[in-house]
């Protein structure tokens, strides 16, 4: 037992959890914890808006596979975090958000900068804590980290009243904690694995659908071993993009609203679907009732509540994805020798793949989103980390940017948060400074959090913003073009800003690329640069994303052109 203040206890507990970096912004109600940071080796990254702090912690957490930490003050500081917390929740990203709160005696009195952040965040966190004494803090921090990173990861909020931060008390740092209402299922039930094995062995047209769970449990090797053992083609959800090397002969790419045409066509032809760490979201499978009527479904997930939530399945396997895949491969290896690649299903797959090539039309301009992304792939090393903003830029990435090295891609796939990619890429750079980090962006999204350029310069976190600039909210414009008879409203971003000047104003680097040659040079320059680089690539506002599965329709109703 040692005597210390709540803030000291907090910072010490964070250090014990291995925290080396915190993204945040100080204010009245969290000054005591900031003061304590001055006496710690934990690095603080000052953001220009708390939303970005949460996204940075999220990006950091996804790459490190342990909770990223963000700090904000009470009231508006806390509410500014909310979008970032919600984003992390929807994508099961580990995060610990720590907010200051008004002093205990002021809670509930509508004090200055008071808000009920726990009430606001309950539905978008794994758990929220509010320590009511300094002595509770060490145990709460330990529980918070454990909850955030174990089982199905997610954000945890710790809301600390200012006087609790200041209170001096005898505290102990527990080595063990127990949460009796929480025990993640790690090891799969062997009987269920055996049933899955039987189904897979009988399948004539098997398919693997790999989701975000493969990334989270780092099961890339196991996934590839299973696919290659039975020669099963692999589609991914968008969150699962890059769970399987996209240049692999068995890779069909992402399915869904802007999935690959061959993936969307072939998944509904399969007779046994092995869904791994995927949640059958509407964006992936289209209309719930229509999807998977004719197929048997095996569903592996660590979260029992995902089984049967959106889709009734035939064989549920509840467990960690990696542990479950290992069990599957082990059992399968005893039963079969490695399959060859000459079965009718794979022959059909290759025929469909060939026939679908004509679906992907080239836009007539010299420089297009598709060509730009192909160029980026050509020049970017495979270990580079890539994230995206939200909208057309994201969906072009889904279609035209192959992830070669598993685990190098992430995006706001669940909440679909514009403004996520840039701060998240900065968080990823902090987690892995030795590799290039690229945010594939559109002008609408980048505009939302572009002030993080200051962070890239001041905190030496040089990332590349690959900005496909169509001077509009392109995805909204595409929907208005397709579904609202070209009645455009609220999509015109022609007022700017000039993103090259914006970058320069922050002492970062801005390069405009108006031809493929210029783009080639710009990417090479950016990769060598020691400051963040914004590559502004003007594209045609009418370059659409196709194929497209319209909302509320099934995968078979994919639209391939306007």
């Amino acid at each position, binding site marked *: 037992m040692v005597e210390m203040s709540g803030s000291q206890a907090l910072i010490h507990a964070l250090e014990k959890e291995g925290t080396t970096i915190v993204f945040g912004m100080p204010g009245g109600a969290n000054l005591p914890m900031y003061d304590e940071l001055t006496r710690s080796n934990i690095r603080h990254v000052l953001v220009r808006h708390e939303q970005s702090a949460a996204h940075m912690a999220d990006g950091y957490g996804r790459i490190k596979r342990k909770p990223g930490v963000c700090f904000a003050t009470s009231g508006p500081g806390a509410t500014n975090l909310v979008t970032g917390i919600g984003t992390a929740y929807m994508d099961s990203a580990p995060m610990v958000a720590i907010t200051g709160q008004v002093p205990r005696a002021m809670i509930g009195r509508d004090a200055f900068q008071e808000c009920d952040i726990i009430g606001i965040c309950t*539905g978008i966190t794994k758990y929220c804590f509010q320590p009511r004494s300094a002595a509770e803090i060490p145990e709460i921090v330990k529980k918070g980290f454990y909850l955030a990173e174990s089982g199905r990861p997610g954000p945890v909020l710790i809301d600390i009243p200012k006087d609790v931060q200041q209170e001096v008390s005898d505290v102990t740092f527990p080595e063990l904690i127990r949460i009796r*209402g929480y025990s993640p299922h790690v090891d799969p039930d062997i009987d269920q694995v055996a049933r899955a094995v039987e189904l897979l062995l009988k399948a004539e047209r098997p398919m693997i659908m790999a989701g975000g769970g493969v990334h989270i449990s780092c099961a890339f090797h196991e996934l590839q071993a299973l696919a290659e053992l039975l020669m099963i083609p692999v589609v991914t959800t968008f969150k699962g993009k890059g769970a399987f090397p996209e240049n692999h002969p068995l890779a069909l790419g992402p399915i869904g609203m802007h999935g690959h045409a061959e993936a969307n066509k072939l998944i509904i032809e399969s007779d046994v679907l092995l869904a791994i760490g995927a949640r059958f979201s509407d964006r992936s499978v289209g209309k719930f009732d229509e999807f998977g009527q004719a197929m048997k479904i095996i569903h592996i997930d660590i979260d*029992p509540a995902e089984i049967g939530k959106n889709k009734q399945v035939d064989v549920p396997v509840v467990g960690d994805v990696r542990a479950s895949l290992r069990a599957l491969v082990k059992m399968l290896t005893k039963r079969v020798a490695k399959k060859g690649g000459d079965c009718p299903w794979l022959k059909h797959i290759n025929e469909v793949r060939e026939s679908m090539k004509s679906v992907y039309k080239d836009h007539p301009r010299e420089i297009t989103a598709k060509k730009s992304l192909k160029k980026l792939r050509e020049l970017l090393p495979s270990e580079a980390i890539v994230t995206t903003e939200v909208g057309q830029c994201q969906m072009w990435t889904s279609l035209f940017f192959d992830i070669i090295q598993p685990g190098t891609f992430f995006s706001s796939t669940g909440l679909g948060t514009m403004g996520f990619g840039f701060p998240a890429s900065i968080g990823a750079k902090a987690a892995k400074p030795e590799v290039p980090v690229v945010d594939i962006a559109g002008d609408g999204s980048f505009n939302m959090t572009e002030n993080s350029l200051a962070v890239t310069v001041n905190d030496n976190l040089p990332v590349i913003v690959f900005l496909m600039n169509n001077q509009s909210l392109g995805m909204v414009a595409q929907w208005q073009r397709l579904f609202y008879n070209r009645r455009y409203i609220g999509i015109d971003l022609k007022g700017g800003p000039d993103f090259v000047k914006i970058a320069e104003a922050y002492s970062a680097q801005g390069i405009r690329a108006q031809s493929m040659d210029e783009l080639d040079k710009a990417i090479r320059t950016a990769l060598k640069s020691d400051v963040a680089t914004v590559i502004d690539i003007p594209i045609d506002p009418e370059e659409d994303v196709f194929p497209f599965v319209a909302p509320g329709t099934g995968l078979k109703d994919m639209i391939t052109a306007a």
Partner: protein
Amino acid sequence: MAWNIISALVENKPGVLFRVSNMFRARNFNIESLSVGPTEQSDLSRITVTVDSDEHVTEQMVKQLRKLIDVVDVTRLQVSDTVYRELALIKLKAVDPSSRMEIINLANVFRGKIVDVSKSTIMVEITGTPDKIDAFKSLVEHYGVIQLARTGVSALPRGVLYE
């Protein structure tokens, strides 16, 4: 659709009821009744929820409840193997002596208790299954129901071994 009783043991601490009810609201699940109170263990409360829902929705409710950190255990109670009771207080209009007598007689038939009488009202306390309370209510409705309060269902499985 079927009538289901879900029984959840939860941590007895502030905010837990909010987390539970908030989950039901956010997931678009409909609660028919909800009751909460202490249990044989001082640090646990029991929340009993009744719902009218089809099988897979009920399963989802149970799983989503289990997912909440403060929820320690969840059981779906089989109606046939469960003792379940609700308490209602019904304040009825009873100005003339004859209606007063009739209400007292009806309450006796339902093993209810008269718990309050004024010059113009009479209050009946009645315990039983929700059906029994509904039946009593429909019998006395024509006297004029001034106020009605129901607790929601409390339930425990029959037998000795549990959890």
